[in-house]
């Protein structure tokens, strides 16, 4: 019994070598640093109860230094900061993110205070909901994959996983702000404009998503080339 557990905790290599893989044995569980992880026993479903049991027994991976136990911690925002980061300069990336959130909030709160009482409830002032909703509006539903058949490669419409969709939305947002805007504006300014436009379903990133959908729709004849 002890020998089999020791085998599972040893350094692990996958059977098929991938480009990006975690050196952790899959036996290890992911950490959950939030204080709200503690829920009452009676409210859990059987699967969740099983998970709680596992957590008491199994080893857990080390938490990242960017995760906090406070409720201000947002995994989507952390992921976005990591994607914006260049050369490991997390402080700069996090600073840009906070400035973006601040500038979104300033624009919306200014609009809120200047508008008449009837229109005040329609204005969304929370930068976090704007960020989440804007990113949601940029996520493509269907993507294209290149499949080679008979010497020619075709663009085949293909379903995307959640992670891939989230990645594409963030990547498009960042590249759009880096490349297609005026060179002398700050990144937080560009990001805030683009996020506010995405929240209203306008702007270049949403347009890019629509273009991808149209391409997928145009290529639907090749859909049966997909074998997975």
């Amino acid at each position, binding site marked *: 019994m002890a020998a089999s557990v020791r085998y599972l905790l040893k350094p692990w290599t996958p059977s098929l070598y991938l480009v990006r893989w975690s050196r952790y044995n899959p036996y290890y569980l992911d950490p959950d640093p939030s204080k709200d992880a503690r829920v009452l026993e009676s409210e859990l479903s059987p699967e969740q109860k099983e998970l709680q049991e596992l957590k008491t027994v199994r080893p857990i991976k080390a938490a990242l230094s960017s995760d906090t136990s*406070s*409720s*201000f911690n947002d995994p989507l925002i952390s992921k976005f900061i990591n994607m914006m980061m260049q050369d490991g300069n997390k402080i700069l990336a996090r600073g840009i993110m*906070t*400035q973006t*959130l*601040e500038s979104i*909030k*300033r624009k919306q*709160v*200014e609009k*809120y*205070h*200047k508008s008449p009482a009837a229109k005040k409830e329609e204005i969304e*002032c*929370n*930068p*976090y909901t704007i960020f989440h909703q804007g990113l949601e509006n940029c996520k493509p539903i269907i993507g294209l994959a290149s499949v080679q058949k008979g010497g020619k490669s075709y663009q085949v419409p293909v379903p995307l996983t959640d992670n891939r969709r989230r990645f594409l939305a963030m990547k498009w947002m960042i590249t759009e702000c880096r490349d297609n805007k005026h060179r002398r504006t700050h990144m937080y300014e560009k990001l805030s404009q683009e996020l506010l436009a995405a929240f209203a379903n306008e702007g270049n990133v949403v347009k890019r998503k629509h273009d991808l959908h149209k391409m997928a729709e145009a290529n639907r004849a090749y859909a049966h080339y997909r074998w997975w």
Partner: protein
Amino acid sequence: MKHNVIVINQLITVNNLLFSTHLLTLFLLNMNLHKLSSRLCPTVTQKFRHLHIQSSGQQLEAVAVETASAEPNPLSVFRTSEQDPAYHSERQSGQYYTFPPAHIQKLFPHGLPPRFQLQIKTFNEGCVMVRPPALELISYLKRADYSKPPLRYVLYGDTGTGKTLSLCHALHYCYTQGWLIVHIPDAHLWVKNCKELLPSSSRPSRFDQPIQASQWLKNFKITNEHFLSKIKTTQRYVWTKRESTEMGQPLGELVDQGVNRMKSSSDVVGAVLRELRLQAGGITEGEGAFKLAVAVDGVNALWGKTSLKKEDRTLCEPEELTLIHNLRKMMKNNWSGGAILTALSQTGSLFTPQSAYLPNELLGEEGFDHMEPFVPVSVSNYDEKEFESCYLYYLDRNWLQHPHSRSEEGKKELIFLSNKNPSILERLCAFL
């Protein structure tokens, strides 16, 4: 005990008796909030506590009891209806009052900190908290004798505790009382990053800064328009072979001369300051009498180092700059009929360590000797009541958007992260 002795010695050098008695009254009023300790001099305790604020939150117990006014309307806990700074007292301490928009445009074309200007733009109103240092300053201004030389007040404190805004509050009081305002928003801007440093036209070993001087004269004109036609020059000023200002011309002409002719603008600034100094308390009749308020933020720049270089690439001394030289003359108390309000600042200062905030560290030996004797006013972080008020204000203005920040635990986190420092709290709440 040693610390007490040193602070007592410093107190003795101050020549205003009202200072210690007023502190005593303030202390007695706050008895229910602070713990009493039996030391030699209770006033020393007050000062000592402000100088040694611990960064850990251990000493702070949650003070649940609000000692605010017993008004039933919950909205008015953090806002006061008293908009005139002359009537502000300890009753309004911790509450916000609004600057009238007309006053902001006239009085503060350049005086407010940039983040506060952003806040005015976002919230569509300019609200400032009434805090003890500003109340102290205003009470001294009310009771001072203006036939004697001016008193020098120095606001000092850690970074981000509210020195500049307290100065602006006191200046608003002076403006509503009809004083003439000479406001240098940041003296550090005059000793660094100067694109054009010209050798002075009037004196061989001085340097002029035309852009900064003309910019300041424009703002001075906006603030004090109604005084410019009443004050007359007492001397003939010659600028070039063809230009001169005669005796008896209104001050407005002198200011226009400086704004239009950039080359002599630094000398014009010197002339304007000299005229104001001579005439401030001189005339005691009704028509021409005015009181002069000289407000300088970042006054430690006048005696620090500059980062400007002369043409032979040696460092410039602050003494060699015309603007600084004239300002130093203004800081001396050899005139009468006004007050000198100053605030120290480490943030923009050159070649000073980040931990320095006390007057003798920032002013240096030369500055301290020049400014002595002065009335020090210490500015510290928010206490529980003021933090509560600030939190409620942000909630009211729809600024705290994150759902967790509106809960009790989120509030405790904010207290922990900011240590109730006003500027850090403001920056934290900006993205939450």
